[in-house]
């Protein structure tokens, strides 16, 4: 039978973890396909998750494609579908279709230093790259991470970040000072200027709220990064995931299909429609 691009595969939630609680709750899910379906993807690609009766939402995959046992998604509770996802438990079934989008061109980055710059939930898409880069460590130069959130409570992957510190420099920040906070206080773009990653043979990959990305890019430019050395992701409302439903475009690019990963050199040629 012909493949129906709109039919999701059933997947079972096998693990959930509360990353952030409260008004802007973030939860991490691991899923396994119920019928043994396989799913090969690249870092930075997304999947359309279904909660039947509520609808679909496009979510970036935060696990590394080199780990084949499960798919991992970290999801901010923000609307109808994501709220329903947050209410689900281990053993519940969701629908997954994809993978969608272009993903990060990791093969083209071989031999280069990678600096990851994330804010809030923006660490989720980066996480897939971070994990993959660690698993293929010999192929890349130095790795480092600059990450920040509003408060220490809003930091995702807290345990994993603690482990990560053993493997690469990790620079954390929060927006407003807290008594027990030992690291940087201020916005992520400021921390970038503070930590001054060197542009030499380096790729900067940034992901987070649009306003953060805007200033991170500005500051990276100040640090003499070239447009081609900066990669980021774009988010827009999506329904089909395959460049047909017509809503996620920026200029003639469909973010779902031609994005979500853009080098700044490419993105700045497109209209600001995100």
């Amino acid at each position, binding site marked *: 039978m012909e493949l129906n691009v709109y039919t999701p595969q059933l997947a079972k939630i096998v693990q959930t973890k509360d990353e952030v609680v409260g008004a802007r709750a973030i939860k991490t899910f691991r899923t396994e396909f119920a019928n043994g379906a396989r799913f090969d993807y690249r870092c930075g690609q997304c999947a359309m998750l279904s909660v039947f009766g509520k609808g679909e939402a496009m979510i970036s995959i935060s696990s590394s494609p080199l780990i084949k046992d499960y798919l991992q998604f970290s999801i901010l509770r923000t609307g109808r579908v994501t709220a329903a996802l947050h209410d689900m438990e281990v053993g519940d079934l969701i629908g997954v279709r994809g993978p969608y989008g272009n993903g990060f061109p990791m093969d083209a980055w071989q031999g280069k230093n990678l600096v990851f710059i994330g804010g809030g939930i923006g660490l989720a898409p980066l996480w897939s790259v971070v994990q993959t880069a660690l698993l293929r460590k010999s192929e890349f130069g130095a790795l480092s991470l600059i990450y920040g959130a509003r408060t220490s409570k809003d930091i995702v992957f807290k345990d994993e970040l603690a482990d990560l510190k053993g493997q690469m420099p990790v620079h954390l920040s929060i927006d407003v000072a807290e008594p027990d906070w030992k690291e940087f206080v201020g916005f992520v773009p400021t921390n970038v200027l503070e930590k001054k990653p060197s542009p030499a043979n380096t790729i900067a990959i940034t992901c987070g709220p649009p306003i953060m990305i805007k200033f991170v890019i500005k500051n990276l430019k100040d640090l003499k990064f070239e447009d081609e050395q900066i990669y980021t992701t774009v*988010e827009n409302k999506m329904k089909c995931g395959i460049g047909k*439903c017509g809503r996620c475009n920026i200029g003639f690019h469909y973010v779902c299909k031609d994005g979500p990963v853009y080098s700044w050199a490419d993105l700045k040629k497109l209209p600001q429609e995100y």
Partner: protein
Amino acid sequence: MEKILAKKSFPQWVKKLDSWRVYIPRKDEEGRWNYFEADGGEVSLDVLQTTLPPKKILFPQREVFLEFAKTLAGNRETLEIKEVLPEVKPTVIIGARPCEARAAWMLDEVFGGEFKDVYYWKRRDQTTLVGFACTTPPSENCFCTSVEGSPHSEEGLDLLLTDLGDRYYVQSMTAKGEKLISAAKALFEEPKPEAKKQVKAAHAESEKKIRRQLKDARPIAQKLKGMFDSPLWDEESMSCLRCGICTYLCPSCHCFDIGDEVESPSPLKGQRVRTWDTCQFPDFTMHSSGHNPRPDKASRLRQRLLHKFQYFIQVYDKFMCVGCGRCITLCPVGIDIIKVLDKVRDHGA
């Protein structure tokens, strides 16, 4: 293959197509033209423009993608998902305007490609398009000749009928089309050489009758690339009401929404459906956060025009406008795509 069909034989031919589902334009009591399923009643091709293009036959306003249901067996809940595919009988659309068939030829690009849309293609593959050349333009706002079409264009068509007074000149472009002729072979005659000449003349004449013109559509497409931030969009969209007429009634507009319709919340039962959607509605692009990349009428009008006259050309090298003029005729506030593009062309000149 080229044939002649006497006009008086036309109803007989339609009757002979009984193994197809036949759609044909018809006028209702109020004088509105629309495509209806032929029911053995009177048929003729003497038509003006239908309000809705035949797009709705290939791309219905509502399409069920799948059904979902939870069942409780003992205390175990199971979720069942059933993919729903349309069952499509072989279909003929008779009297499609050449521009409407060109729209299908554009939609083929959208619904084809890397991710093939099975719902569209199930219908498209089963559908034969019989065009009716516009020897008289069906609308005063027709401008097909300005967007690389013509009143007798063949793209997307399987058969093309041209009115030659008491007969139709029938050109078949595809095997699908020939099949319709074979269904009633006896009704068709071989054309004489002068009929060929006549049809050529009729086609040439028909182009001259198109009343409206958009000059330099290709250069406009080029120019649009630099006009994203132009104040023109704000000015031209002032009177826009943000309704969906221009897009819902457009033969080539194809944007859609996918949503779950719940019949019963407990135990859960419902359908996932695709419905038409339009870039003219503010919620079309609005993020869950409330952020909207196209927050105003100006950006939405711009999107409609750029999609049709820039983006689609960049990707597929075709306009996504067939020049049927419906969006002009039916706009409640008289927004005229030709006039807006005229302004684009003359902008800064």
